[in-house]
């Protein structure tokens, strides 16, 4: 057993250690760089051949502040490179990088996503598009995130717009727009394959091949599959495993300098383990069911772009989308047809007009699985007609511009709704811009508000079963928003960029759940049912428009490059809600529910290092404040990804998500005990031909 060293001897030893390290350090500084990448002074670059110049890797592409810089909207662009480096395995996970976006994972295959509050599993007030195709369901007015997927490698960028959208049209862009754009097939030539697995992401494989003639027709085909294990359940009931497969294609044809065409499509099928509430008017009346949701569907999209003289152009787009959902407590089949036209006309040197119109028909069949959840009528065909006009006026060229616009829409359950907006952009100097805007936006009602009967069993009173039931509200009105926003952007130095945005939203007629009647005896159900149940007592409720109030907040997103190989980005998002209920009897989801499920503070810090020619390291820190209404305490966690590029074709990466704790709850959105999200680690091997 070694004797404890006398203190002064230990100091001597320590000093010697330090000296040795200091020498080693200076030694490293003094050493000539090994034969690594060539010197890159101008004189060195001058001497390089064309081939050598084509091989040099440049520092992460100069951030494109220009498009965002001169946009009078709070926009944040997540690039394809950001997504690949973050280790995200799904689109909602990739959205965590954007300020003002709240992403909370509910369980293995479900997320709550919101922009500036109002996050729910279905993101009802956010417009989500993939390559111009709207991916929301009118049944519940929202987006089923679990079926919005594509080959993440082939995503060019995700544009996240906080606040009511600008030229993006269509209803429900009330709190924001998420626009997922994939790369043209011209940019995805050659082969790509990746495969990997880990503890939660148990196995996944992706493959893509693209070919064609860059002068004319290029194409790509892809396929992907995954299987995912359950998250953490304290009752060990691991119902949320998830597996799926998807494939698709894209073709881009440049017929001439004037005309180009795109045709693309996807097909998917997946099984999502889930736990749902079941209720019915016959025994056993109430319970939960664990089962697989069978989700499948496909889409096909066609686009034609024509460039006219004078910098004008137009675009025509048409798509068909089919979704099938078979869940333990409901089923839905939906066909959507949509056609849109958009034209850009330059009226003069200082004025440009953007206008367009579109028509969409969405035909849904509801399949009843339990009498406690019914849509009546079961077959419904909804249509939407929309148009928009936007005038971009350069009041003082390159300094002050004004954008006036209006979206007009009409559906079969709202009359005619207008959504005007006005925006002003001031660029006092080359490196800073200020913008202000006002928008009046509308969220149209969905089947779930107008045609929906949802029952829950309360108990037995005097030997008679008692239920509470939400009844259809044919008079559910659109939700309204008057949004006032402002923003400031500044390129402080060549390596420091700041983006700041603030908003004040006045909400009217927000969705509320109200009790509308006292207990009464009911002998026949208000919707057709094969076997009418015995008489029962009913407490009636309805979705109404009784919430109103103000939400306000701000987001600041700096980006800093301390060194050429190191990029640091972050964001802080603040939200304050002051919602009230108009006199009525609230049931459950009142103002407290919305406020308590939208985080007041969010922090993201993201560090990207290019350690060497072949080594990349990305670390992300995330903080979300508490969501008491959905039983989620405040949490801090981190993700990491390190990748080695062995040669120009092969890359090996190890990624970890939710690393700080073995598991944590983000949003209790399933019946039963809250599901906690596990620490996940996985490895990927990637092969590329180009």
């Amino acid at each position, binding site marked *: 057993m070694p004797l404890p060293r006398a203190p002064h001897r230990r100091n001597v030893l320590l000093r010697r250690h330090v000296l040795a390290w200091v020498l080693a350090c200076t030694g*490293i500084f003094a050493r000539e760089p090994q034969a690594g990448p060539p010197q890159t002074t101008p004189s060195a670059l001058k001497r390089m051949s064309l081939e050598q110049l084509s091989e040099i890797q440049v520092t992460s592409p100069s951030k494109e502040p220009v498009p965002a810089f001169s946009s009078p909207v709070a926009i944040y662009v997540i690039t394809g490179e950001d997504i690949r480096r973050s280790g995200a395995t799904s689109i909602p996970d990739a959205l965590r990088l954007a300020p003002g976006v709240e992403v909370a994972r509910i369980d293995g295959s479900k997320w709550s996503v919101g922009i500036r509050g109002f996050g729910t599993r279905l993101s009802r007030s956010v417009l989500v598009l993939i390559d111009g195709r709207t991916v929301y369901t009118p049944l519940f007015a929202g987006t089923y995130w679990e079926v919005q997927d594509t080959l993440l490698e082939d995503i060019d960028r995700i544009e996240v717009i906080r606040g009511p959208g600008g030229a993006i049209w269509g209803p429900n862009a009330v709190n924001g727009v998420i626009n997922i754009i994939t790369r043209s097939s011209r940019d995805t030539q050659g082969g790509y394959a990746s495969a990997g697995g880990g503890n939660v992401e148990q196995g996944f494989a992706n493959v893509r091949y693209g070919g064609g003639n860059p002068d004319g027709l290029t194409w790509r085909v892809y396929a992907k599959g995954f299987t995912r294990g359950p998250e953490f359940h304290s009752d060990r009931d691991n119902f949320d495993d998830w597996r799926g497969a998807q494939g698709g294609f894209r073709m881009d044809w440049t017929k001439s300098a004037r005309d180009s065409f795109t045709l693309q499509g996807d097909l998917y099928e997946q099984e999502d383990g889930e736990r749902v509430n079941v209720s019915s008017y016959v025994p056993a009346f109430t319970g939960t069911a664990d089962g697989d949701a069978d989700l499948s569907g496909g889409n096909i999209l066609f686009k034609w772009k024509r460039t006219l003289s004078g910098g004008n152009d137009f675009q025509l787009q048409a798509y068909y989308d089919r979704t099938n959902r078979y869940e333990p407590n409901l089923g839905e089949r939906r066909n959507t047809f949509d056609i849109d036209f958009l034209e850009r006309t330059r009226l003069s040197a200082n004025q440009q007009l953007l206008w367009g119109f579109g028509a969409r028909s969405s035909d849904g069949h509801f399949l009843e699985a339990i009498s406690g959840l019914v849509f009546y009528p079961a077959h419904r065909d909804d249509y939407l007609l929309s148009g928009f006009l936007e005038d971009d006026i350069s009041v003082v060229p390159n300094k002050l511009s004004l954008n006036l616009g209006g979206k007009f829409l009409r559906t079969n359950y709202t009359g005619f709704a207008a959504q005007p907006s006005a925006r002003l952009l001031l660029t006092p100097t080359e490196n800073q811009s200020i913008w202000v805007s006002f928008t009046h936006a509308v969220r149209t009602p969905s089947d779930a508000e107008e045609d929906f009967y949802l029952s829950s069993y309360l108990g037995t009173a005097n030997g008679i079963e008692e239920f509470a039931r939400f009844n259809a509200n044919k008079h559910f009105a659109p939700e309204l928003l008057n949004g006032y926003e402002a923003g400031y952007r500044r390129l402080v130095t060549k390596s420091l960029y700041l983006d700041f945005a603030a908003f004040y939203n006045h909400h009217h007629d927000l969705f509320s759940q109200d009790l509308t009647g006292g207990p009464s005896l009911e002998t026949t159900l208000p919707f057709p049912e094969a076997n009418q149940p015995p008489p029962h007592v009913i407490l009636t409720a309805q979705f109404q428009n009784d919430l109103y109030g103000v939400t306000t907040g701000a987001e600041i997103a700096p980006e800093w490059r301390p060194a050429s190989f190191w990029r640091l980005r972050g964001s802080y998002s603040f939200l304050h809600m002051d919602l009230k209920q108009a006199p009525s009897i609230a049931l459950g989801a009142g103002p407290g529910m919305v406020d308590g499920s939208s985080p007041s503070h969010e922090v993201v810090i993201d560090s990207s290092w290019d350690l060497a020619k072949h080594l990349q390291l990305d670390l992300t820190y995330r903080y979300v404040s508490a969501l008491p209404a959905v039983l989620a305490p405040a949490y801090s966690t981190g993700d990491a990804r390190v990748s080695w590029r062995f040669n120009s074709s092969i890359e090996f990466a190890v990624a970890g998500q939710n690393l700080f704790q073995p598991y944590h709850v983000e949003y209790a959105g399933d019946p039963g005990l809250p599901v906690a999200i596990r620490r996940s680690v996985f490895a990927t091997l990637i092969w590329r031909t180009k």
Partner: protein
Amino acid sequence: MVCALCAAWGWLQALAEQPSEYDVKAAFLLNFTRFVEWPADAFAAPASPFAICVLGKDPFGRALDDILEGESVNGRKLEARRISEAPAARACQMVFFGTTEKDILRAVRSSGHGVLTVGEGEDFIRAGGAIGFILDNRRVRFDINQAAAEDAGLKLSSKLLNVARSVHKIEMDQQP
């Protein structure tokens, strides 16, 4: 512990010196002068300098001037200029379109004979430009529109065509 960090920093600095995107693009512009043939009437006089003009917002900073310092092609001194109006491009032999020039189609047409148009982005050559830079996996590459170069009376060396990522022949529609 402290020095593990400083050792890492030193190592990073030494190993990861990477040029910026615009350093490399400036080097490419210099190379283009050597692999493209200009017609004799592109120059005002036998001793006129060779002008590389940047139209609109200049993303190069010092990079272009540093690269062209002391360089010449066929005995003509190379010069970098900044211009703000498209018609002024007629006096240049090469025009680089800075990022704020929106109406490229109109500006390119007015550049005329003997001017090599260079720009950025996928759409640049489709709008009538001759060489368009794109970033491919953090490398600076370029696409060529041979028809646009030929319309301007320029001859592109086969070496340049081989190094390009892709070569197109996109004719401009004759629109009134």
